[in-house]
């Protein structure tokens, strides 16, 4: 057993500069091994290797752009030195024209600043990037192993978090919604967890796809059977998946378990309302939940109304004015007000030219509505 702690400087460097992928798990492995008797030299060697790998992983994707930029500048500088036609060069690149006019000064400036430039080039990959890449994580829902995408801000946290419920899109299409909302929220200091429920995306091998089940029910018993299947699945198996994802998120050391918001679009909006009814969230953001299925579907209307009447946290309802129906937001907001539950409603101007565009505002228009959603979430969850 090693009674002395691991070298703090090496740990600090790892926390700050090692690759983002499973950084905490790597540091935990090193601390555990050090505690079992590995020396500080071993710890430092591992840390330096991890830092080098992290820097390499950050630089490699940018290498083609860097090489192209350097080649372009080399060509232009050679032209600057050989031609005496600054006007042509100005047309190619105004900055080269500027350099031509100040050649002597340029040499002096470059000579003095070269070490600083080199240092900046080396450190650039380590600087914080607001748009964090997502990592795939697994979680258990009953006996099923499901997967989801996790977006994290820089640092150890703990951070407030958003559990993002996807819609009914097949395959990995919901990744587009996650990639719209995720980076905006991460830049504001929120962790975003977007679990794929059974049958969709990276959890498609865990069970049947909900839309296939709805279509089968429709073929068997018509529209009423389809609606019943949709409501039943969303309120049972799919809801269980959401709550399992919430339980997983609450266990993470980088998440503030008391500051988790449920958010979702379309089917994900319905899931959000059902999730807030269950409890465990500090707020909910229902984006166009049930808009495509609302008209004439009494069972859905009644189940969602029941959910908001028992809501355990405030809910923000938002939609574009040209969605298939804005009634779900209006009706559910009114239902919450009637039982004195805190709720807000935002109906935005038409987005695009069709009802489909209006419905897709739920994810495509994230940069439009997220400001309002963040104000609502921060007022309720980060007082």
């Amino acid at each position: 057993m090693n009674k002395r702690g691991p070298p703090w400087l090496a740990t600090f460097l790892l926390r700050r500069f090692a690759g983002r992928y499973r950084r905490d798990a790597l540091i935990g492995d090193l601390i555990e091994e050090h505690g079992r008797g590995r020396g500080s030299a071993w710890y430092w060697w591992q840390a330096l290797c991890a830092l080098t790998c992290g820097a390499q992983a950050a630089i490699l994707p940018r290498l083609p752009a860097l090489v192209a930029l350097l080649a372009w500048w080399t060509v232009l500088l050679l032209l600057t030195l050989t031609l005496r036609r600054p006007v042509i060069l100005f047309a190619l690149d105004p900055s080269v024209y500027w350099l031509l006019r100040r050649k002597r000064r340029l040499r002096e400036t470059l000579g003095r600043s070269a070490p600083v430039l080199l240092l900046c080039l080396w450190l650039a990959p380590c600087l914080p990037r607001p748009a964090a890449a997502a990592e795939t994580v697994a979680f258990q829902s009953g006996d099923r192993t499901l997967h989801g995408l996790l977006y994290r801000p820089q640092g150890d946290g703990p951070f407030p978090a958003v559990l993002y419920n996807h819609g009914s899109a097949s395959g990995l299409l919901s990744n587009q919604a996650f990639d719209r909302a995720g980076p905006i929220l991460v830049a504001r200091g929120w962790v975003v967890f977007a679990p794929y429920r059974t049958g969709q995306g990276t959890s498609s091998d865990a069970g049947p796809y909900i839309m296939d089940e709805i279509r089968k029910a429709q073929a068997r018993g018509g529209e009423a059977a389809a609606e019943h299947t949709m409501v039943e699945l969303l309120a049972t198996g799919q809801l269980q998946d959401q709550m399992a994802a919430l339980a997983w998120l609450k266990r993470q050391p980088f998440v503030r378990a008391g500051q988790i918001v449920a958010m979702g679009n379309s089917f994900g909006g319905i899931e959000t309302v059902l999730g807030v009814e269950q409890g465990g969230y500090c707020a909910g953001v229902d984006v166009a939940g049930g808009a495509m299925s609302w008209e004439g579907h009494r069972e859905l209307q009644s189940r969602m109304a029941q959910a908001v009447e028992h809501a355990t946290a405030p809910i923000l309802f938002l939609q574009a004015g040209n969605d298939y129906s804005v009634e779900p937001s209006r009706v559910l907001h009114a239902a919450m007000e009637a039982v004195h539950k805190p709720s807000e409603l935002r109906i935005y101007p038409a987005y695009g030219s069709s009802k489909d565009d209006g419905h897709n505002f739920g994810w495509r228009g994230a940069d439009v509505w997220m400001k309002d959603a963040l104000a609502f979430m921060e007022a309720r969850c980060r007082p």
Partner: protein
Amino acid sequence: MGKREFPGSLEILVLSAVLRAGREASGIPIAHEIEAATGRPVPLGSIYATLARLEEKGMVVSELGPPTPERGGRARAFFRLTTPGLAELRHAQRSLLALWDELPAPGRGRA
């Protein structure tokens, strides 16, 4: 159809180690499996960088266990092969064995 991308040698080692370590496949057991098989230590940073590439390619998935005090409050990441990962590993095994069969015995040339 996209160009097939073959896994690198470290990727094959890591895939094999994840399979061998089974349910306990996390950073340290994977490193131990590789060291036991090759006789050479591989830095954990390289293993995690390889796992990141493999997860991006959909060959492994990972999940976090509970955080523990002996790890400074950090969770352990557990890895397992996906179906494409297992298929890729089997393909690599078949290719290497086929090539090995064609090799002359050590010390003898081909007639």
